[in-house]
């Protein structure tokens, strides 16, 4: 037995071997006992309407045993005006704010809207556990609160890999229990709105304030139950496809307590008064989502399509394309385009002629026939010491159009744009970090 440390003609492999060993041990560590933190600040602004500032914080921790813990926190701060459902008319319209504290006037020819200011908070947590080598179970819970809304949700997801790990099945079920407690009081559907008037002058408008205190688990209840079935299939080392089907059943108080509808004269089209909207007390919906992701030499193309239909008669199609162009050094530029269109709900009407009797009606523009297109550009690059941080910025512009002059418009309504275009700008800054 001998101890020797001299040299000879063989080439030294130590440096290359040390490098390979470090990379093996580091890769093990990077996936265990480290936090991956994602933070983002989103700014959403509609022309003359709502603006939202939304900071978001998400944390993910991979544990030694392969399990994963997820936590997220989102705070929304919303201000602005949202169309209240009343039709545009040739008269002066006066609305009292939902809390009843202030008055708000809308000039002839303008689309009536409610001013509001609100904040929301939502927290979510999840834990993914490897049950067997090819089976993972993920449980999650979430809670969100606004001044007039609170909700508690639970999900359970099973991820089943086939032995070759090229096919993954996803089975998920979820339930959400929510409470709507509108400022003032939650209105009875189809009851007459007493706090609004047509044709009389009143005190000029002030921005209405909504309560900034959270009112938890009070008011009218609504529940939502979701089921999802999905398949993810690796087609080749460069191509992946994903297909999801989901079913949602909502039941309970599904109205928007701030949405009203104008009662109009069946001949002149002039506004006579207002009713609170009335939606069915349940909604079954089905959605089919398909995605195709293809890696070119360096760049990545993503195509997706979503079909949605529900028992309210809303049929929607969403198509999206994203192209990730690699700039080198882990920086990229990603142009994206999204096209969306939906049909109106069966009970959608821009206004209600006084000679018509209905059980269900809503003038919420979100239930109208809509088309929209969103173009965007995202830029990302590594940032920070040892390049373990990633910075990104995304800029999107959306244009939504509706039926400005529907055939059902009556009398004076024909003079106005009953569905003005909506333009929105979205800017999001993101930063993620591993430590």
């Amino acid at each position: 037995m001998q101890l020797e440390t001299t040299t000879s003609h063989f080439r030294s492999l130590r440096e290359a071997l040390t490098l390979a060993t470090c990379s093996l041990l580091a890769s093990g560590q990077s996936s265990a006992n480290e936090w991956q933190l994602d933070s983002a600040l989103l700014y959403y602004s509609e022309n003359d309407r709502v603006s939202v500032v939304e900071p978001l914080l998400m944390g993910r921790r991979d544990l030694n045993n392969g399990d994963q813990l997820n936590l997220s926190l989102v705070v929304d701060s919303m201000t602005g005006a949202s169309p209240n459902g009343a039709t545009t008319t040739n008269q002066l319209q006066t609305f009292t704010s939902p809390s009843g504290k202030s008055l708000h006037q809308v000039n002839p020819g303008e689309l009536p809207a409610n001013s509001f200011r609100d904040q929301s908070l939502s927290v979510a947590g999840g834990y993914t556990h490897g049950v067997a080598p090819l089976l993972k179970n993920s449980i999650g819970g979430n809670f969100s609160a606004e001044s007039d809304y609170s909700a508690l949700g639970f999900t359970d997801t099973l991820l089943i890999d086939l032995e070759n790990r090229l096919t993954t099945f996803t089975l998920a079920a979820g339930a959400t229990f929510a409470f709507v407690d509108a400022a003032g009081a939650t209105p009875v559907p189809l009851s007459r709105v007493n706090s609004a008037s047509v044709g009389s002058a009143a005190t000029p408008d002030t921005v209405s304030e909504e309560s900034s205190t959270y009112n938890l688990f009070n008011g009218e209840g609504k529940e939502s139950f979701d089921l999802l079935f999905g398949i993810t299939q690796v087609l080749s080392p460069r191509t992946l496809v994903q297909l999801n089907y989901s079913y949602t059943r909502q039941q309970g108080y599904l109205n928007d307590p701030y949405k009203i509808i104008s009662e109009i004269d069946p001949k002149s089209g002039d506004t006579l008064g207002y009713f609170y909207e009335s939606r069915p007390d349940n909604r079954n919906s089905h959605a089919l989502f398909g995605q195709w992701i293809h890696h070119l030499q360096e760049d990545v193309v993503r195509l997706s399509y979503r079909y949605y239909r529900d028992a309210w008669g809303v049929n929607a199609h969403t198509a999206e394309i994203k192209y990730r162009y690699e700039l080198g050094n882990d920086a990229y530029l990603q142009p994206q385009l999204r096209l969306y269109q939906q049909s109106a709900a069966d009970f959608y009407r821009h206004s209600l002629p006084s000679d018509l009797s209905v059980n269900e009606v809503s003038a919420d523009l979100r239930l109208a026939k809509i088309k929209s297109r969103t173009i965007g550009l995202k830029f990302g690059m590594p940032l920070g010491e040892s390049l373990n941080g990633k910075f990104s910025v995304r800029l999107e512009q959306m244009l939504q159009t509706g039926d400005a002059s529907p055939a059902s418009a009556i009398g004076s309504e024909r003079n106005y744009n009953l569905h003005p275009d909506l333009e929105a700008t979205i800017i999001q800054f993101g930063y993620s970090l591993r430590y």
Partner: protein
Amino acid sequence: MDVTTATAGLWRFPFNAMASPCEVLLEGDRTTAAAIAAEAIAEVRRIEEKYSRYRQQSVTSTINRTAGSPMSVDSETAALLDYAATCYQLSEGKFDITTGPLRYLWKFTDAATLPDSAEVTALLPHIGWQRIRWQNPHLTLQPKMEIDLGGIGKEYAVDRAIALIKNMTTAAALVNLGGDLAVTGPRQHGQRWQIALENPDHHQNRLTAEAHLNVTISHGALATSGDTYRHIKSHGERYGHILNPQTGWPIRNAPRSITVAAATALEAGMLSTMASLQGAAAKAFLQAQGVPYWLVR
């Protein structure tokens, strides 16, 4: 857990894993030491369960069952395959994780005889890392091919256990998996760790040779490659258990035992294995690496 005090202030937690006697040695108070040792042992067992080719549910068994069609692997397995690919290149094809099928012919037990050379030749088309398509995370083995991460798994487990312990405590520790071992650093008061290496000469001749060779280390790892108990003797020639993937036959004139000291168990293990694969040139290879080594012919 079986625990004994090895010396004052040092706790010893012996266990069996990877078909070898193993131990974790830890300084500090007993309760803390036991909790940390339990975590380290759990990590070793996790790696054993995940990569043992003797377990039906292991990743290795799953990969081997799926030979012939493409599959995709998790990130830890991908890192191990990347490492195996690098070692294949660095050793110019001598270190190869695909020699598994040869084990069906070469049984290194006391009564074993040499296999039929035609049978060995017939297996060669199913051996060779170059026949595998590996593009992280996508892996395709040709039909009848097998991989075996046994050549790196034990050392990987030592290094992972050491990293885990370092994350939990500053107290000094040693992890020993069947002779491949690493320490977190020097013992308290800067003491070095005393390691007794088994001397293969003692196994052969109990009268003349010392049973152990004492080595001391304060940092890093020691790993041994050898065939003290695993060889076939035929017509006066020793056939060691380290196989040449290019011929399907054992490496000729390989030293009986090579122990290497390096920063990590993975490096120490790979350098000792690569040295064995050099056969008669093992010593020259080790000298070129500039690492401390102990070689028995």
